[in-house]
């Protein structure tokens, strides 16, 4: 499976994503934000970091960058687009995903392991995933997902909520919500479920010496579904 990771000035999880993708067998390429086009890919990843310094609003300037038109075209033609952390923020700024990411409820940056519940498996990311609850890792200051009531209803009706923060046993409540996100939302899809944005970093959880290994399941599953 061919993948491309876009590097914006200020991206800082681009290498980690490259390492993770290659570890599981993706043929990955790095693409510079000022490029006009993206090499032929089956998956485009917008990595975490602080694109353009997070100035103006997180993800806002990246959503107007040169490369982004190709990303939008690719998404609209049904290609898989994955945005992690800052990548998720960029996707909401482009309008490919609904809603916004506000500052965390307790106003602090949070770097911590979290559990997320997989809410929908009828998509190319989570189909046939063996676990319902994954242990992943978050590291962000603006991960507090918010959207209007109408948008939320649409997300729920179309099963566009991808993952929600939960406890180890899968319970979703206020204590298992690290940043105040509405309905504990940690990640969402677009309507066609080819675009996924999520705050947790699967690329930081890919071997047992790191914070955990559930990120491996995530990447392997994408590959399995592609075959």
């Amino acid at each position, binding site marked *: 499976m061919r993948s491309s990771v876009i590097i914006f000035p200020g991206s*800082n999880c681009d290498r980690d994503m490259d390492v993770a993708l290659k570890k599981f067998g993706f043929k990955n390429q790095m693409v510079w934000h000022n490029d006009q086009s993206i090499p032929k890919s089956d998956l485009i990843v917008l990595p975490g970091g*602080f694109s353009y310094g997070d100035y103006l609003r997180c993800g806002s300037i990246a959503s107007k960058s040169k490369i982004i038109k190709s990303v939008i075209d690719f998404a609209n033609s049904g290609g898989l687009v994955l945005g992690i952390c800052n990548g998720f923020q960029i996707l909401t700024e482009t309008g490919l995903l609904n809603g916004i990411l506000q500052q965390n409820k307790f106003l602090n940056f949070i770097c911590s392991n979290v559990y997320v519940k997989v809410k929908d498996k009828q998509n190319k990311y989570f189909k046939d995933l063996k676990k319902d609850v994954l242990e992943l890792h978050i*590291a962000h200051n603006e991960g507090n997902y918010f959207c209007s009531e109408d948008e939320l209803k649409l997300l729920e009706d179309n099963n566009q909520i991808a993952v929600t923060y939960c406890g180890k046993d899968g319970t979703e409540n206020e204590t298992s919500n690290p940043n105040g996100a509405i309905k504990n939302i940690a990640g969402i899809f677009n309507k066609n479920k080819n675009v996924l944005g999520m705050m947790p970093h699967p690329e930081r959880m890919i071997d047992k010496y790191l914070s955990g290994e559930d990120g491996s399941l995530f990447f392997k599953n994408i590959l399995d579904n592609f075959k």
Partner: protein
Amino acid sequence: MEVTEAVAIDHGLKKEEFSKICELLKRTPNLTELAIFSAMWNEHCSYKSSRKHLKKMHTKGKQVIQGPGENAGVIDIGDDDAIVFKIESHNHPSFIEPYQGAATGVGGIMRDVFTMGARPIANLNSIHFGSPQHKKTRNLLRGVVKGIGGYGNCIGVPTIAGQTTFDESYNGNILVNAMTLGLVNKNKIFYSKAAGLDKPVIYVGSKTGRDGIHGASMASATFDDKIEEKKPTVQVGDPFTEKLLLEACLELMADNSIIAIQDMGAAGLTSSSVEMASKGNLGIELNLSEVPCREEKMTPYEIMLSESQERMLIVLEKGKEEHAKKIFDKWNLDFAVIGKTTNSKKIELVFDNKKVAEIPIDLLAENAPIYDRPWKKTKLPQKLKFDKDEFKSLKLSDCLKKILSNSNISDKKWIWDQYDHTVMGDTIQKPGGDAGVVRVHGTNKAVAASVDSSALYCFSHPLTGGKQIVCESYRNLISVGAKPIAITNCLNFGNPEKEKNMGEFVECVEGIIEASKYLDFPVVSGNVSFYNETKDKGIKPTPTIGGVGLISDYQQMLTMDFKTEGNLVYVIGKTDGHLDQSIFARELLNEKKGPPPTVNLFNEKNIGETVLDLSRKNLIVSCHDVSLGGILTAVSKMCIKGKKGIKINTLKGLTNKYEYFFGEDQARYIIEIPKASLMKVNDILNKYSVHFDELGTVNGQSIEYKDDINLPIEELEDAHKYWLKKYMDS
């Protein structure tokens, strides 16, 4: 403006220093020249009070590639890999403006490391605040933590370990020491020594603004009531630009275009240009009209003194200008040829086609004043005679809970949760352990690092304190299974013009030297911060040691959490029960006098090597050094982290349980041993003639000791984990 003695004094120079300048120059300097002298001759840049003593540091070793004197120290970790590291203070600015002060501290130290061609792979910090009751403490702590996180998180370098303490002596002067480790190929290290004539001098990075002017002089003076007025001397950081600068510099460093490179840190363009020329024994000519400026009508004086962040000065190979410019254009950074190297051995500044300054380099560097300041020895305090009958009213379990929730012992998760400690995907030991550990990307190796200081011990007896911190750093590295290699130090002291403070400095340094020699744990970089004093009240002497060690196979890394029920727990090293200067004495007896625990370097080395041997042979499964709070505190942390209890044996020949459990004797570790390894462990302990106590067995969900202690882990955790969060929320 006419330069007079009064103007010189306003610039932080002493009367005698001004006369010396006039004498050396054989004329009165103009204002720009005076500014350059004041920047180069202040304590922060010239090390004029400390140099005499720092010279004696133990700085050489088999694995040392570069010792003190460069942007950072470099050590060899095999296979052509080298680690570049340094610690630096940003105390004064952080007290005036905690967010920016701390943030630019982190930015500055990272630049020191990537200037040498290394990609930063880990950050650490040692931060010290006033009493929790002091009205400024909470906000300063919040600002500093946010600043450190704001900068490091944005660059994408994990913050893997740290230390936070509270003491009333920091009420008017907090300490913020930041450390960075970088990874470089040992054949591709870049230095700051210029070479060759007529080579282009390049300015890259951010534009120059009026921020931070006189920053280095501010950091070389004590504080008074008017510190609020000093806010404009604090630099403002932009981590985004630094991230771009990092990537651009590393890209340019991939080929052979750079002759020398130096970041513009304290005293900005002045110190960077003078240092490069001085090291290369050359002259340098700068055309200040070419310097990219952020503000209009900046004068040569301002340009030379600005401490705007995220700037670098490079001496480039001739003909490489276009190639280099292309890289900096790609990263949207300023790039300007602002001068050249010359054979004049002078710094010559031109502005608007007029020469505005001309100073022989050696007057600024080698001829800078060096002081042999008078100092006073601190006598070893008399050992206290505790009234042990008084102890009897204290319940062991209450004492333990009180100690675990002490501000200096309690868990600092509230802080490190705000630091990205997992970015780069190689952090295998997070903050909260004895040392942070990151893998050397793509290899089996891992690097461990820790920061330590013991102001209370150093205050009580500087010589012992100096030795103790080096040993503590050594132990922390060994506790995670790393072989200690080298240290960096940040020497935070009061006013060197006072004999007592100068004495504290001299004796702490002596202690550091003695221990680092004995343990073969050389000092490869560091910095000195004097004048941590407000209205005549100085801080307790706080040398901070940043230690770095190597784990050749990261699968052998150790952690402190208890692993398996039924495993045996030993205390390695002898416990005499030294309570003077302990947390127990302070917290429960309100006793602050007495000497710190004795440091026995033979024991430190022998016991350290024993533990390392045990870990290399995979005979132990967890390890933790015993430090503040003694055995019971150490064991509690192992229980909390492992979510497992311990049944402590009835100890034979125990004279006093309080002394045994809370004494802070040095050179001790606690190890967890699987039953199957026991015989081999005993053999090795005997081979090294190391004293050990069979403390107990990993068991159940509580700490149990006879009828004295029966504390469930949740209760320990409550005492230990939430003090800081509650404090910050209140």
